[in-house]
């Protein structure tokens, strides 16, 4: 092995080491798809939520990630024996995976909640509903978030 090969090898090792360093996230620990799955499991008690009967409505491309309107609707007669008990919303790439948990009940009359959320980047949002019979329903939506064009210093 020539001297140049050896130098090359050690440079590549150093670069690989540096590359590994760069992969370590700097700043607050972020939500991840795994953390979101764990949070959903915690909400459902590891029961399997079924798809259908719930919609998470959100624009697929938002104007600004700071304020994203969302609406969650669940199909339910909202009677004393058959209603939505709670709706939880999760994300997979913000610093925190939980967005909100809404507690409803038969007195809500209609299982529909709207709010405005923040999204740090393009990611998946998930809504999970807990029904009065202990079952769960789930719906997810993929949202594209673009940064504002002009990054402004606060003058």
């Amino acid at each position, binding site marked *: 092995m020539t001297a140049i090969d050896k130098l090359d090898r050690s440079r590549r090792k150093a670069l690989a080491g540096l590359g590994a360093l760069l992969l370590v996230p700097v700043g607050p620990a972020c939500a991840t798809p795994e953390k979101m799955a764990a949070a959903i499991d915690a909400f459902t008690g590891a029961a399997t939520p079924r798809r259908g009967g719930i919609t998470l409505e959100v624009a697929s491309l938002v*104007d*600004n990630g700071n304020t994203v309107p969302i609406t969650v609707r669940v199909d339910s007669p909202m009677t004393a024996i058959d209603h939505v008990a709670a709706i939880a919303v999760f994300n997979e790439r913000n610093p925190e995976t939980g967005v909100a948990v809404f507690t409803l009940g038969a007195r809500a009359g209609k299982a529909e909640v709207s709010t405005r959320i923040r999204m740090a980047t393009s990611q998946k949002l998930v809504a999970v509903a807990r029904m009065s019979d202990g079952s769960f329903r789930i719906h997810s939506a993929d949202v594209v978030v*673009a940064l*504002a064009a002009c990054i*402004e210093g606060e*003058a």
Partner: protein
Amino acid sequence: MPPRFLALVPLVLLLCAGIGRAGDPRKSGFDFMSPSTQAMQRDDTQNPAMLWVGGGAALWQRKAGRSNQSCASCHGDATASMRGVAARFPAFDPHTNAAIGLGQRINQCRVRHQQAEPLAPESEELLSVESYVAVQSRGMPQAPPPDPRLTPALARGGRLFAQRIGQLNLSCAQCHDANWGRRLGGSTIPQGHALAYPVYRLEWQGMGSLQRRLRNCMSGVRAQVPRWNAQELVDLEVYLATRAKGMTLEAPGVRP
């Protein structure tokens, strides 16, 4: 007059001539927003700016200064007395012998008539009163006063609009006249008609004046940012009001 500005005069005149005509090539920034942001502006029960309008309505009744008078003491019911006022600003102020914007005019009233401290620029109180006054002109056409004393400010504003500034060496006209509708990063470039100010800007997660937006644009192209109420900013406000003459006011609006 620099030749570059002369070239813009026919454009300005063409834009001004588009008053109320079907096929007016001018579009509000509202048209470039997504449906959910449009819904946020359209519905007063959803529009965050209404928090500031509510604040302004309360401040309108509050006595202030050595005079111990409120805005209502002189102006009565704002829904009547302030109707159409915001549409006519910026206006020429004979006391300072200069063009002034609505926010400055409100502070003039505070200092001269209420003998109170002026409200700080971009303060919640000033934005609240400005929003409350501006909403009384909602739905009316932008009506810059045909005051010849405003002509120098209008000319300066027009020149500044066409002038390249900052490290990025861009002029307002390059984006908002020549490239509106195209994308800058992920955003669609609007034409830059200031019809919705004060505005709840999603990027700010709060309320702001036209001057704040202009200063942000200038820092965005890495230009030196003028201080609040600097002549350049008021000149631009005067020019923008004429450029948008006849278009429908939306204040207080929502923008991305």
